[in-house]
């Protein structure tokens, strides 16, 4: 009897010892898993980028090929198109994991679900928001966006799209259990995207006018900080509803 007890005691210690760093390990493992999965479906990674380029192509055709007019609407147009591209890619954020059951494993994991879902959002941003931000200047050239605003365009999109991914993931988590949740997802999330859009476009327009962009970027950073703090908990709560319901 006493032998069993002494045997059990170190086992507890061994379990507790790695628990100190297990949060970070779990975060990294989830992130790596998602990045690997995304890299295996490279075609899907390209889709948001192609969509972005396509939407941007529609506008010169739909409005006017006149460079002066295009330059006027370019900042807003690029931001709206990137926002829609990011939104479209969100539907698949939890979908495959939901279908094959690995989302339930995340729920059962001892680490907080909020942190694990944050890892998934980071992976999503790395392969959607960041490429969109890097691609935007190229489309900016095609829309005759005046020089001097390209770096700010990329930077504002990079910061902004991180907030978009975080806020959008709440909607994706809420609708993952619904069979055709795609349109509903846009309905839920687009109103919440408006502040990010306002400050993102504001930054580019301020850069075009030669004004200071720090205020706009600071606001984008504030939105990101707030959503980084709050969104993971909402995502986790939404995932629990979608799985258990």
């Amino acid at each position, binding site marked *: 009897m006493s032998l069993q007890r002494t045997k059990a005691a170190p086992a507890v210690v061994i379990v507790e010892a790695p628990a100190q760093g297990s949060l970070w390990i779990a975060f990294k493992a989830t992130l790596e898993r998602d990045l690997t999965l995304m890299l295996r479906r490279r075609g899907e990674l390209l889709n948001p980028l192609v969509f972005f380029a396509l939407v941007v192509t529609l506008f010169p055709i739909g409005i006017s090929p006149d460079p002066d007019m295009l330059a006027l609407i370019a900042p807003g147009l690029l931001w709206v198109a990137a926002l829609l591209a990011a939104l479209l890619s969100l539907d698949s954020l939890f979908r495959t994991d939901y279908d094959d059951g690995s989302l339930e494993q995340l729920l059962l994991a001892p680490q907080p679900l909020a942190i694990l879902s944050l890892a998934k959002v980071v992976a999503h941003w790395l392969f959607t928001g960041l490429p969109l931000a890097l691609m935007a200047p190229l489309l900016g050239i095609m829309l005759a966006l005046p020089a001097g605003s390209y770096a700010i365009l990329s930077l504002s999109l990079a910061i902004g799209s991180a907030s978009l991914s975080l806020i959008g993931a*709440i909607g994706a988590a*809420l609708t993952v259990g619904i069979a055709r949740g795609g349109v509903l997802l846009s309905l839920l999330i687009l*109103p*919440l995207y408006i502040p990010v859009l306002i400050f993102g476009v*504001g930054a580019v327009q301020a850069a075009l006018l030669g004004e200071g962009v720090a205020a706009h970027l600071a606001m984008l950073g504030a939105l990101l900080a707030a959503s980084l703090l709050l969104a993971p908990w909402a995502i986790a*709560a939404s995932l629990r509803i979608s799985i258990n319901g």
Partner: protein
Amino acid sequence: MWTFIHKWGSPKWFYSMSGKLQPWFWTVSLLLIAVGTLWGLAFAPADYQQGNSFRIIYVHVPAAFLAQSIFVSMAAAALVFMVWKIKIADMAATVMAPLGAVMTFVALFSGAVWGVPTWGTWWMWDARLTSMLILLFLFLGVIALRSAFTSRDSGSRAASVLAMVGVINIPIIKYSVDWWFTLHQPATFRVTSSPSMPTEMWLPLLIMVLGFYCFFIALTLMRTRSEILRREANKRWVMDLMKEAH
């Protein structure tokens, strides 16, 4: 104190108590709205700039106030439901959402009608109208999400999360839209601000606002009661109630 609050969580208690409260709220709200309407439309002096068209304020402003308050109360009810699992709170949130959407629409529609004499156009991307439009989308999102779930419980909890996310975002949206509008302001129109309004103009407005709030409480009580009956239809006390009624 706590037992008193806890009692309200019971559908049966809520049903009987709200049945007693309801007529009072209806009477007060109809009285206030009748007085406010008559006073505002017939007796309040016409605005020196806008003439009689300003009288639409007596519908527009109360509806806009109410629309925002309904979203906040809906989110508060959602929070109560999520934290304490009180079903009454969810029923109240369920019935508040359509009323809030309607009030937002009334505010938007009256704003558009008001726009014709003041701005010369049905729609302006004015900061307040734009925020109201976004509020309408938020309401529609909550309603759509609730109905998208086949299980009522999941729908309730999902809608509650969305309502809470929305209420955190409402001030952010409102201030960012205000900020956006000041950058793009056409700088020609200015609606008379409230402090410069004479007493005989804002007193009926205050009465109308109070009347609208009482109307909201009365209607919420009434619709929560029918929601209770719908959800608890196979409970014994509801069956007994139905037998008595027949």
